[in-house]
């Protein structure tokens, strides 16, 4: 492991943690979705770099899937759903931005403090990836917990999954990663749609689009 390749991996993984923080900080819907897309881009770059230095071509496929699905398809879908449902634009955190961010820093410290001593036997790259991946997972969970809004909870869940992919790519020798990534992504997409249908049904007692038209007003 030469210095430069480790450094680039470190930058990309650290960048993923930083983008998770930016995601935590967002309080408006459209930038939230855009930052999520950015996180997916950084993740795909990180996985691609892992593929390059580990000489594991199947990780390139994972990177491409991450890029395609999570950086393009899902954000676009979310964008359109948010737009069509006219969901309230400002997202309020439960406790307040300052304490949430401080708690996030504490979670990063916790994940580093847990992971590094535990994985003392593994290679340096794997240890670092696991520590940062746990941080991203915990930050995703924090995002789910600290918001009132369903879309931000879904985004938090998907960013949590990004952390899992980072961990999986860092540990060498996992050929099933491709299949698992695809399956997860489809599962996520289904969950997203399901949540929204559920919400619509909760609000209007129907998912029938004809009936919804009546509530929109203006257009008959």
């Amino acid at each position, binding site marked *: 492991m030469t*210095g*430069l390749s480790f*450094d*680039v991996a*470190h*930058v990309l993984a*650290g*960048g993923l*943690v*930083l983008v998770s*923080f930016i995601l935590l*900080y967002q309080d408006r819907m459209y930038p939230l979705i855009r930052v999520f897309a950015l996180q997916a881009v950084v993740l795909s770059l990180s996985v691609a770099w892992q593929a390059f230095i580990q000489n594991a071509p199947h990780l390139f496929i994972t990177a491409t899937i991450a890029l395609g699905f999570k950086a393009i398809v899902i954000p676009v879908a979310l964008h359109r759903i948010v737009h069509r449902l006219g969901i309230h634009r400002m997202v309020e955190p439960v406790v307040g*931005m*300052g304490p949430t*961010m*401080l708690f996030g*820093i504490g979670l*990063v*410290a916790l994940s*580093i403090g847990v992971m*590094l001593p535990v994985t003392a036997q593994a290679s*340096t790259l794997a*240890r*670092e990836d696991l*520590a*940062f991946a746990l941080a991203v997972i915990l930050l995703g969970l924090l995002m789910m917990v600290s918001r009132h809004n369903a879309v931000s909870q879904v985004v938090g869940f998907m960013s949590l999954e990004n952390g899992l992919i980072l961990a999986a790519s860092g540990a060498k020798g996992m050929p099933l990663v491709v299949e698992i990534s695809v399956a997860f992504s489809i599962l996520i997409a289904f969950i997203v749609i399901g949540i929204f249908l559920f919400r619509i049904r909760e609000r209007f007692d129907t998912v029938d689009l004809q009936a919804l038209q009546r509530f929109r007003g203006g257009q008959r």
Partner: protein
Amino acid sequence: MAIIADLLVQGAQMLLVLLLAPLLTGFVRKVRARLLRRQGPPLIQPYRDLLRLIRKEVVVADGASWLFRAAPYLIFAAIWVAASLVPTFAIDLIFSWSADLIAIVALLGSARFFLALAGLDVGTSFGGIGASREMMIAPLAEPAMIMIVFTLSLLARSTQLSFVVAFMSGPDVGLRISVALSLVALIMVALAENARMPVDNPATHLELTMVHEAMVLEYSGRHLAMIELAAALKLLLYVSLISAIFLPWAMAVAGQGIEAYVIGLAVYLAKLVLAGFMLAVFETSIAKMRVFRVSEFLGTALMLGLLGTLLLFVSRNL
């Protein structure tokens, strides 16, 4: 003989920062004006302003005390001493061992202390508003600064600026994200401390939007000249600090001979031009924040500093 040469070089640096500070301010104003499609004042206008001010009579308010008249000199002295300790074109100068990062930040704190007191001295509400806002911004910027110092000292194993610069220009640094995070945090702190956009508008004429300008509202004549020169010196100090730590290349080491000094000086001037240009572009492209959003801005700087420190623990212990 070597001592005399070293003293001369250190003295040259002290004079250099004093002479360059108004030029940097003038350059930033000129670029801002050009970006806004104005002609803008000439580059040497700050020098003319200072010369004009020191020749004018000072008008002191009735209720002002000796502190009001002494404060500009104290502020100027503290900032000049701090600015002459920051490496500009050369490191390891004769007094560089007293250039501790924490001491430099604390000297700037002294200057701010006396400036706030001068604002309160006259007993007007504008002075009070400036002083109270300045004293709100300072406690938010200092923890961020300490985190940056912590990150740098973890990397370079020193808080003395010459050693930090020597380390950062050496091969051991590597491409670290903590360095990038510290750079962003330091830029945010520098913007807040120098009363630049988006924290404060140095060109504002609306009193309720001022922080720095409100504190010096009552000053005139030579006092105002000292304070303006001190503010320009502070900007030069922060620009030199950022360029010395994060762009540390081509700095001369003391004792290397006159060629190295000249090259160092030329590169330093180039760094100043670059920094001034980027500052002007940034200021023109962003609006001033509400006063109570400054706490979020500096809180973000603190978060970035903390994150940089934590990520450094990961990369250094592997």
